[in-house]
């Protein structure tokens, strides 16, 4: 569905992506983890041609998105819903208008139909009450969820989530995880999720990839991921108290309060 072929990208004087190749299957939830500045957001941007590779290609289905322009590009992009890291809401539009914007601009629907659809989508992200507020007047976590609602309202085939749960409380985070999982199971959506939260990565990912300094050092199923031999992966797991058995380990104590699905 999405294929990176030896993608190399230089930004400023840094090589941000260095010979990155991987393939994401249809109906997968592909999770990308990695430390700050590893190139996760840059990878996502390549999938929708907000950035183009210096070398290599990015395929979406049978199209090379990295070389598409005009109508072709528009067609490829219409298959995507994107939640940006910064939520990227238009500041002068209300929450409802932000969420309804793609419908208003792209779909031939009546006002009432749009309204109903917006209500429905806001409900999916637990935000019915924020309807008329401006983005500046809601919390960062709420803005993130509005961005999420806007990303899914067109019912796209592929959804890119850049840190969907950062800045959210644990309970809301799990709601978002469940939503992502539901979209995959129910509607066959293909998702790419960038996250720092390994617990949600293990919970929702069909495969997990780790980017480290612009290189993809690990791509594997969650159960293989936590047993990875890579030092960086093990460090990353340890930093969130996850052991090789996929269990919580609190300060090397005995309390094992969490058991992942693996």
């Amino acid at each position, binding site marked *: 569905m999405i294929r990176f072929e030896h993608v190399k990208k230089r930004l400023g004087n840094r090589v941000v992506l260095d010979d990155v190749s991987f393939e994401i299957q249809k109906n997968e939830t592909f999770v990308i983890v990695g430390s700050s500045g590893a190139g996760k957001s840059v990878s996502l941007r390549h999938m929708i041609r907000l950035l183009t590779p210096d070398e290599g290609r990015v395929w979406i289905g049978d199209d090379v998105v990295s070389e598409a322009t005009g109508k072709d590009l528009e067609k490829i992009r*219409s298959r995507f819903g994107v939640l940006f890291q910064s939520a990227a809401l238009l500041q002068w539009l209300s929450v409802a208008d932000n969420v309804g914007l793609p419908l208003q601009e*792209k779909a031939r629907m009546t006002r009432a139909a749009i309204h109903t659809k917006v209500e429905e989508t806001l409900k999916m992200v637990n935000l019915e009450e924020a309807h008329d507020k401006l983005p500046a007047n809601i919390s960062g976590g709420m803005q993130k969820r509005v961005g999420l609602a*806007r990303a899914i309202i067109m019912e796209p085939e592929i959804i890119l989530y850049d840190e969907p749960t950062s800045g959210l409380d644990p309970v809301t985070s799990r709601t978002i995880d469940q939503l992502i999982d539901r979209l995959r199971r129910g509607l066959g959506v293909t998702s790419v999720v960038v996250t720092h939260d390994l617990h949600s990565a293990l919970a929702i990912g069909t495969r997990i990839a780790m980017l480290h300094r612009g290189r993809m050092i690990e791509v594997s199923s969650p159960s293989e991921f936590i047993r990875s031999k890579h030092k960086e992966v093990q460090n990353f797991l340890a930093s969130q108290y996850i052991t090789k058995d996929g269990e919580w380990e609190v300060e090397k104590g005995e309390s094992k309060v969490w058991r992942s699905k693996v």
Partner: protein
Amino acid sequence: MIGEAFLSVSSIFQKRSRHEVMYQLYITGIKSLGVITVVALFTGMILALQTGLELRRFGQEVNIGTAVTVVMLREMGPFMTGLIIAASVGSAIAAQMGTMTVSEEIAALEVMSINPVRFLVMPRLIALMVMMPILTVYTNILGALGGAIVGSTQLGVAFTAYFDNATLYATNKDLYVGLCKAVLFGVIITTVACHQGFSAKQGAVGVGQATRKTVIISFLTILTVGYMVTRLFYQ
């Protein structure tokens, strides 16, 4: 970019775009009115005082009516309005577009295949192209009025004599060339501001830089283009 903005002008017939254009007209026009009033009045007053004092040496002070009005119509009206709008509205546009670029809002629009030029530039372009000549007329009137005030209080030129003199020599061409400049300045300000905003670099520093550059580049372009238009029409 500007070509694209003109091409998308047809979308003004959509209700949503029309609403946005009206809003931009409002903020461009109404919000700068205060500053423009003060600047226009004083420009006229200064012009009248300086030329008046010189003309008085030849006993020609009654001609300040023409001097002030013609200079306002041809040069100072559009020029002053252009500078004020560049500094206030242009910088605000650059800051807004810059913030939107930095916070990925422009990227989000592109991914939704909503053309940022049609969605953001077009309404602002129209607003400035319409408002610049209107504000220039306003500047001209106030400038002439400022001249008249100085004329009657400092130089002993009566209001009626001042305006008779002004209407005798100022031509329609002076007005049209000035307004033509005003429209052109509107295009310049929007283009520079949007272009700077869209190419803003990451962070608040980038936005600040885009704003600063907008003001400087607009000023310089307004000056040079103003001169060239004058050259073109008054050989």
